[in-house]
């Protein structure tokens, strides 16, 4: 029997349990409104390493280790690691996997990688292939900045639509065991959407249509009312993209209006000079593996739809005048 429902949505027959999770964030994220909800806040951006790239990889590795040690597992007991990040050739994930010695699948969905990894992990568990899988992602402000934008010490004025790549890593452990909450109940795989946006300093505008299309597909496929969830969070649309998404909800007829927010907006407070908000894989990963899953385990959120959004361009395609293709994947987490 197919577990697919509608065109894009999968419903898990035995929803995998999120048995533990862990998050590491950089100093700036630690100073934000959720500083106390993360497992570890770094004191600086190098994390006792020689380069920012090594620091990011170490953050990812530590997030995985902390998540599995909460269940008293050794890395050798984990059957599969599904992971990715923003850097070329997803090096942070590759090098973290080198240290961990867990069978590894690399993922790239830009900033949507957390949802992409989680839904793939959930399919692997619900499909009966594995019973103990980790999904993890990372991003680092300075590694992303130097790859996608300008050298960090160059005096550049940021526009109000620009976003701040979060320094953060998050990991979730999925298990096929009875009992316990929260669980991944369904997921919607997004299509690549391109609405002709080309400004790399305004990614929220490029990604908002992809997020709304995926959310719409999710509700259409499952015949659910948009107020089914206690909270819908997008990954990193920022203030600009979030305002656009809310407008698009109305235009797409998503009524009644869902209780909606965005991880990139939530992650920082207004005084932190991040312009439109946070971005990067770590934005959704940190919010999920910090405050959100904590609130779910406390029963303060019982139904959550995480819609991680990704902008899929590279500096090369941008220079060649290409527009920004975007994607969003939705993962439903429920206490059942």
């Amino acid at each position, binding site marked *: 029997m197919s577990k697919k429902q509608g065109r894009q949505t999968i419903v898990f027959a035995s929803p995998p349990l999120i048995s533990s999770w862990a998050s590491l964030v950089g100093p700036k994220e630690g100073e934000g409104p959720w500083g106390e909800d993360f497992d570890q806040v770094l004191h600086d951006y190098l994390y006792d390493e020689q380069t920012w790239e090594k620091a990011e990889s170490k953050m990812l590795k530590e997030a995985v280790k902390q998540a599995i040690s909460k269940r008293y597992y050794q890395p050798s007991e984990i059957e599969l690691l599904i992971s990715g990040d923003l850097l070329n050739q997803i090096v942070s994930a590759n090098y973290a996997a080198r240290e961990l010695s867990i069978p590894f699948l690399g993922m790239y969905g830009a900033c949507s990688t957390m949802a992409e990894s989680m839904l793939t992990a959930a399919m692997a568990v619900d499909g009966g292939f594995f019973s103990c899988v980790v999904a993890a992602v990372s991003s680092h402000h300075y590694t992303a900045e130097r790859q996608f934008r300008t050298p960090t010490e160059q005096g550049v*004025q940021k526009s109000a639509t620009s976003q701040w790549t979060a320094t953060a890593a998050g990991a979730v452990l999925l298990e096929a065991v009875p009992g316990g909450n929260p669980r991944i109940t369904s997921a919607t795989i997004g299509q690549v959407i391109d609405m002709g946006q080309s400004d790399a300093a305004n990614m929220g505008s490029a990604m908002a249509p992809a997020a709304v299309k995926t959310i719409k597909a999710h509700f259409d496929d499952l015949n659910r009312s948009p107020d089914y969830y206690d909270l819908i969070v997008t990954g990193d649309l920022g203030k600009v993209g979030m305002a656009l998404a809310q407008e698009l909800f109305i235009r797409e007829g998503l009524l009644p209006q869902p209780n909606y927010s965005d991880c990139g907006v939530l992650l920082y407070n207004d005084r932190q000079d991040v312009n439109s908000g946070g971005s990067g894989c770590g934005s959704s990963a940190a919010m999920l593996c910090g405050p959100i899953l904590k609130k779910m385990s406390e029963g303060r959120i019982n139904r959550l739809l995480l819609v991680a959004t990704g902008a899929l361009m590279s500096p090369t395609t941008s220079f060649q005048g290409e527009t920004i293709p975007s994607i969003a994947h939705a993962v439903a987490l429920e206490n059942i």
Partner: protein
Amino acid sequence: MDSLSERLKQAEIDEYNQLIKKIEPKPPVIKNCIWAFIVGGLICVFGQLIINFLMSNGWNQTDAGSGASVILIFLAALFTGLGLYDELGKYAGAGSIVPITGFANAIVASAMEFKREGYIFGVGARIFSVAGPTLVFGFTIAVFIGLLNILFTK
């Protein structure tokens, strides 16, 4: 059929662009311009002070101009190294890009950024990643003007 779907897509994009225009915050142009004017102006005043000082010590105007450039470039390199120039740039915008200090900042920032990839293929190769195009265009145009000068003065 194909052109119809393309036109529909274009209409959808146009409509979305209008929505973005309505929602996205406008840059604080007046505030930015005041910052740019004052910071850029002050950097030029500082350059003029150096030129005046050098000329009062017997340097000719050309050498004083070069000397002032070198000193400004040195200071920009120092402040970039100390991590202060990019802080200034957040507020000053073009005020700290247009003066020659902005050129120096682009070179120094690129050089520092790639230090961890080594001194030859990191610093050495990437030092002109931002400022290189500037020299390419400057040199090419100057040579072209020189050739025109030969053609039209003979």
